[in-house]
């Protein structure tokens, strides 16, 4: 069966003005237990690539610049 692309809203939001991933920081990507964050080739900033979030918060707690916010996934909020 062929695959489709279905839209989904993701709970983790990154403030690109504060994110310093382009300076070599990978903290949020490193600490995510589900490995769902990546650094964008386009912007050099972190973003949530996969909608597989446990809303556990290390990405937000360990971000040195306060750029990451973890929201409650829509289905359960």
């Amino acid at each position, binding site marked *: 069966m062929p695959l489709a692309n279905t839209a989904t809203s993701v709970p983790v939001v990154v403030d690109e003005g504060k994110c310093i991933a382009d300076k070599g920081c990978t903290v949020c990507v490193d600490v*995510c*237990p*589900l*490995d769902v964050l990546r650094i964008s080739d386009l912007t050099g900033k972190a973003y949530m690539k996969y909608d*597989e979030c446990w809303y556990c*918060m*290390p990405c937000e707690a360990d971000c040195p610049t306060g750029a990451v916010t*973890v929201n409650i996934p829509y289905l359960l*909020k």
Partner: protein
Amino acid sequence: MDDIRSGLSEVECDVLVIGGGTAGPMAAYKARKKNPEATVILLEKANVKRSGAISMGMDGLNNAVIPGHSTPEQYTKEITIANDGICDQAAVYKYAQNCYSIIQELDQFGIRFQKDETGEYDVKKVHHMGTYVLPMPNGDTVKKALYRQLRRMRVLISNRFMATRLLTGKRGRAAGAIAVNTRSGEFLVIRAKAVIMCMGAAGRLGLPTSGYLFGTYENAANSGEGYAMAYHAGAKLANLECFQINPLIKDYNGPACAYVAGPFGGYTANSRNERFIECDYWSGQMMQEFYNELMSGKGPVFLKLNHLHEDTANHIEQILHTVERPTRGRFHDGRGTKYARDMIEMHISEIGFCSGHSASGVYVDEFARTTIPGLYAAGDMASVPHNYMLGAFTNGAVAGEDAIDFAAEVDFDDYDGEAIAVERERVLAPTRREDGIPPNQIEYKIRRLVNDYLQPPKVTKKYEICQARLAEVREDMENAMVARDAHELMRAAEVASILDCADMAAFASLFRQESRWGLYHWRVDHPERDDEAWNCHVLLSKMDGAMSCEKRAVQPYIIPIADDEKDAYYNQRVRAQA
């Protein structure tokens, strides 16, 4: 990142620890500490800094056996009773004797336990017989403190490698493991003289009622690989029918931690503001009472704090919103819930395997040894009942110290080289397809079937239907699952573990033809506890390629339990149902 590359490396070590959550780091640390000459590898699917059930720490210990507050004998007795008598006491007793020294060691690591104004541990009373709750005010830093110790101890840490199968040697011993990199699909073969599995609960077994696949009670990374790998290696697994089901904040699906609120005077209430739980302890009996109340006209169930002084309620709120599941605060904010004013609606979790809260796990003795020589298990996936975080630390330490001695006595056991090629093909199969069914859809279907058919109350016919449906899904998984990048490949490998666990949950539950452990194993067509026939463990294992169950006698008690004590929890249940 995430593009699939082909690659295969091989490394060797004395002791391989799989899983860097709670038990794993302690096992690796203790192994190196006991033998600084030895090579110890710690393999972790995520990153040791923030992995496992306690990625954001824990708000307290709820089974701390501290001199002056409780005794090992008292604790062993309580766990035996809470577990309806099915308990090999040696491991529980050993835990109870060792855990205080582990607390002191964790304290030295920089993990703080609440102290009173004179610097003594501020133990809170929750249970009737003993006192076991010790809050952790900076519990959110647990993982960082552990990581620091691992770095100092020069443990070799291997992050983002997911173990998929154990290697067993020609002499029948553990010989290592095969792992795949979750960001590149490259393989790593680790040869080892001893292997310690600390891979956590099977937390992605049932589907949360929100329908969100990753909104589980357990850390969603804990998808049950440990159970599946132990099974395929031929180890025996104990009492898998004793499911984990926990009381949780509805929809958020995280713990409301009545044991944190308890010492402050908070409690679980029904919609009439009345307390209804007879049983202090998180046991199957307590969950049965919880379930009954939910289903009754007096439901739903709430955590009640709004009778407390506003300062006290706010203090509890502050604890619960900082540690373990800190997004609790955000969830309540979103709905405008304040502890000082509102009761918090609660529900029961999806099912899982987790000895941390129940008793389902890889069968181990008091040295954390499994039934395969050189293979150990500790933490949520090992069969020591009601272990919680401190049990993971303590038994992880036991495993590390025993395994390092074992490794000193033996040489590498040779494994069949063909096994690696076969395993690589099994794991990579979803990447060989152009289209098909993605892992998330297969996972959703398995877990939806688990909810529809396996969640208690357990009905024989429903279980048999489930087995047939799961077999169909297995066909799809083996022949049509597709993974487009390394990340999806990790999810695909997890789905195989989830399906194995679902099959084991069904098989073990059908074998035990009685009801026991309250809600955990409530078989509607065998509603009574039958001590004549079933006062024993049920061990599940792979025999000639297929699932098989056997009875195993409970070891003679070290701490005797009087008849009237034995039925303490049971009587409460009967009374509550009457």
